């Protein structure tokens, strides 16, 4: 289980344009980091420290499929995102990049600055500041395995090392003759 981190709290519908603004998408991810969530909380990127957690309401990460949205949080050191619900693609992206995401109906009970400890495998969130223990949706086993491996790439590295690719599919023909 991770150590406790400070909570940075956001509202509903935090979108991927806020997490990874279009203007910084063409360059390296490092150039985007200072602008992550800038339109919502200009101080976020410079205040967040490794191990902190992001807490939000409904629909965190809606919008684009750009995974820089999840990658920026990960590289800023965010240890986990706790939200009432997530945009579907963001949720997949975060797990693929090894960023724990926890869907928790009680996320709004966490206040900015609370010290929060997250156990993704158990679906358990401890608020050290208030003493409250919240439960989050549990992830299926293979996604936890991927998360523990550090994301899809290290997970695949292992898998490809131990297994040859599956047989070619018997799929419908491509649209072009």
């Amino acid at each position, binding site marked *: 289980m991770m150590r406790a981190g400070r909570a940075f709290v956001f509202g509903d*519908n935090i*979108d991927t*344009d*806020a997490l990874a*603004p*279009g*203007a910084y*998408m*063409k*360059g390296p991810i490092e150039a985007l980091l200072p602008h992550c969530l800038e*339109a919502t909380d200009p101080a976020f990127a410079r205040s967040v420290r490794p191990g902190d957690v992001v807490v939000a309401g*409904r*629909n965190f990460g*809606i*919008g*684009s*499929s*750009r*995974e820089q949205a*999840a990658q920026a949080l990960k590289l800023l050191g965010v240890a986990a995102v706790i939200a009432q*619900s997530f*945009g*579907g*693609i963001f*949720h*997949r*992206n975060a797990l*693929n*990049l090894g960023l724990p995401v926890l869907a928790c109906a009680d996320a709004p009970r966490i206040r900015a600055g609370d010290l929060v400890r997250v156990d993704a495998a158990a679906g358990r969130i401890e608020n050290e500041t208030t003493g409250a223990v919240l439960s989050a949706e549990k992830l*299926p086993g*293979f996604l936890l395995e991927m998360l523990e491996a550090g*994301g*899809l*790439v290290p997970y*695949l*590295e292992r898998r*490809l090392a131990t297994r040859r*690719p*599956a047989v*070619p*599919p018997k*799929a*419908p*023909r*491509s*649209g*072009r*003759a």
Partner: protein
Amino acid sequence: MAMTLAEKIIARAAGRDHVTPGEIVICRVDLAMIHDSGGPRRVQPILERLGVGVWDPAKVVLIADHYVPAFDTETREIGALTRRFAASHRLGGFYDGEGICHVVLPERGHLLPGMLAVGGDSHSPTGGAFGAYMFGIGATEMAGVLATGEIWLRVPQTIRLDWSGRFPRGVTAKDVMLFLCGRLGMDGGRYQAVEYTGSAIIALPMQERMTLSNMTAELGGQAGLVAPDETTLAYLRAAGVAAAESAPWHGDPDAAAERHEFSADTLEPQVAAPHSPANAAPVGSYAPTRIEVAYIGACTGAKLADLRMAAAVLKGRRAASGVRLLVAPASRRDQQVAAAEGTLAILEQAGASLLPNACGICAGYGDALLGEEVVCISSTARNFKGRMGAASSRVYLASPYTVAASAVAGRIVDPREMLDREAA
């Protein structure tokens, strides 16, 4: 056992006779679409790290549309890397500057009913208009697909949105989706499979169905399906597809689905206020709102059908002074047809400036972005704060009819009056 359309496609791709909502399955991917922003520049390093090539290059289509045309050193490098990737793999298709991926992919005959397809872009549900289960994924997951040809799915529930009756003149698929975003919210689709059904949907031409499926992304669905029929097959034939089947790709009538019913007859043109598609309301409910930019663009709102809608309003009319009318046709082919039939001339005579067949302002990329405090009405899908330019700019979303009529009036107006009344 009875299955919905989504379940039939997923079961087939998972090599199963039957699947049940909630279970997790591994599917073989029939088609993977990538673009220049999330494609080669992001997946290549991962494939190299994994030490593998593309599992089946013939099933991969690469479309350069986001950084087209390049506008500085970095975007020129992205273009070069994209072209090199295409040259070094024998891909099923590579289109550079031919238009926006979601429009070009079916236009060139790559999509078939019944396919399980992924796209490296959030508007990939557009493929659902053809009865394909297509959804968007990020670059790392796409690299995984390119390496293995597989993807996991949690079998979705099907949410049927049934539209009876017929949409009145001046009311479009875009209005349907803004209305639905307003009514059900941006998480109304709950990352499940949305299926559009009913007499009003069946009557829609292909590119209007594409707008429905496209904006399923804004509705929060994973996929947005329309069961294929003769309209679909006719489109595919014109796109050069030799043989496609529609018959197997229909949900069973008794399959379990959540169902919502709507009447098309009473729907009015909708406008979504800044900064969310869910801020939708009938156009008539807006207080006079001045606009400075009118944008007909994007996969959502600048296909041939959309250009024709704009032209129906703009014929014999001009954009108000002080309004910049910008048109970025969604594909080169659509633009060519629009030019040949006179649609484009109507737009140009109305004062429209033509932009490249690419994502442009919609992606928030490039140099034509909205300035500080600028108020824009746009036929695109998203009006998130700062997406199309300055954080202080304000974007209203509407159909191409409404955008065009508002350009003429200089403020947000109901297009039906102009449609009913020929320009003097």
